């Protein structure tokens, strides 16, 4: 509906014009809230139309040089693995603009270890991003209340419940689950899930290093690996980097 476009433009106005006084800002908030009352009839096509037109007016036509350059080719600095969850798009929380991040989104932002038969999809992304696009940073970002992680943590391992596609996928995270249970098997399940989400990011960072393109780029010092965790309950972002250190050699003298 036209209301969706109006809501978007009002939100843009709020975020772009910091100097709006509180009274005006409050009025805009109120209007936005009224417009956001659920429609009796949701029209998905109209929603897509509104979204695209808004993008075209507010971005594409505002920065034509930028978009013309992008049309010729992309040169993103980042490869990002994020969850498919509708609440955690890195374009929102980290404001990635078109051209900045080659982005994969899958359940629970998992990166499996190198396996050409089973995981061609992920392998293709890593191969393309590093060998063709030359990305110099990989970021794997997990989040709170992840449905995929919860599934992993709560699925019984005694074969009493059949495995669906989801389970086949999230079982990539089994080592993270094992670590969490060993460390804090007595904690409540919610806390275990949040820890598992962070451990699964670390597991993915380790798995990344099983890909030959990643190994080579790391040893050439052309690549940095980072993990992240977005807690949308408290509005907090954690960010960390994988580092490796080679100490100077100890020289054992000849006897």
């Amino acid at each position, binding site marked *: 509906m036209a209301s969706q476009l109006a809501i978007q433009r009002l939100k843009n106005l709020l975020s772009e014009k910091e100097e709006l006084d509180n009274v005006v800002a409050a009025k805009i908030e109120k209007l936005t809230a009224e417009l956001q009352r659920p429609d009796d009839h949701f029209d998905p096509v109209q*929603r897509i139309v509104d979204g695209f037109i808004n993008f075209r007016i507010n971005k594409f036509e505002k920065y034509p040089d930028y978009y013309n350059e992008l049309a010729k080719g992309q040169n993103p600095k980042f490869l990002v693995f994020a969850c*498919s969850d*509708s609440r955690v798009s890195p374009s*929102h929380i980290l404001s990635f603009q078109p*051209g900045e991040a080659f982005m994969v989104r899958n359940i629970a932002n998992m990166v499996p270890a190198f396996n050409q038969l089973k995981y061609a999809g992920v392998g293709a992304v890593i191969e393309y991003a590093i060998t063709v696009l030359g990305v110099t940073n990989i970021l794997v970002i997990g989040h709170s209340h992840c449905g995929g992680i919860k599934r992993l943590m709560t699925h019984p391992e005694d074969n009493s419940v059949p495995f669906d596609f989801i389970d086949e996928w999230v079982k990539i995270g089994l080592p993270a689950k094992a670590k969490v249970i060993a460390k804090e098997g007595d904690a409540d399940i919610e806390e275990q899930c949040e820890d598992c989400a962070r451990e699964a990011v670390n597991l993915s960072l380790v798995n990344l290093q099983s890909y030959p393109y990643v190994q080579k780029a790391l040893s050439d010092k052309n690549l940095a690996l980072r993990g992240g965790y977005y807690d949308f*309950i408290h509005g907090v972002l954690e960010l960390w980097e994988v580092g490796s250190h080679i100490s100077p050699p100890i020289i054992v003298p000849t006897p």
Partner: protein
Amino acid sequence: MLSFWHICSNCPGLTVKASRESLGITEQHKNKNNKLERVAETDDRSELFEDMKQRFLDFKKHKYMGNLEHYQNLAKGQAPKFMVISCADSRVCPSTILGFQPGEAFIVRNIANLVPPLESGPSETNAALEFSVNFLKIENILVVGHSCCGGIRALMGMDDEVDKSSFIQNWVVVGKDARSWTKAAASKLSFDQQCTHCEKESINRSLLNLLTYPWIEEKVKKGVLAVHGGYYDFVECTFEKWTLDYKEDNLKEKHGRISVKNHLFWR
């Protein structure tokens, strides 16, 4: 909405002029060359961290805190109406080009926005489909393709025999039916034009592949799940969109043409 667009295109006064201010990102793009940038110095890395921190804080200040109640509701659970399958290409994020806000769209991104059929076995794409259709009960699946797709180009350029050592080829071969159709129907066109045809045809193949999952077909048949295709041309900035018109005989013939309705084109 259509009349609003009509007004926009007819009133020069409403045309937005290119910004004269330098956008930080535009500056970066102008300064870069196309060679691999070496992140050798520590300075670059801590700058990147600092940049990410700033972006997150901006998001938190301008969006999260500004809509706290909305975000707190979202934290309790998501109920997106869309599941979007799009390419990993940095230029085609659905949150940007279609303005999906937090909570609106469950998004899967892979090379060339491909949907493998049921018989190819478990993968991240069908895991996500299962989650979104059976658990989140989304009502719309949208497969979005785009211009100048590197994955489709790789598909069109490869030999019939897959190079086993290439992940890219092992993945994009999912689109081989689209490639065969394109080579047959568009053989007289240039390679670039063939790629464009394949980009669009592969979306349709993906829509058909969606129907190989019985739990998807059943919902489409009942009318509680709609399946749409979309194509974003970022050279001209246009968007084409169509909806699968479900007929049981779509699936009978492997090379059958799919039937669509509500085909729209926005420029």
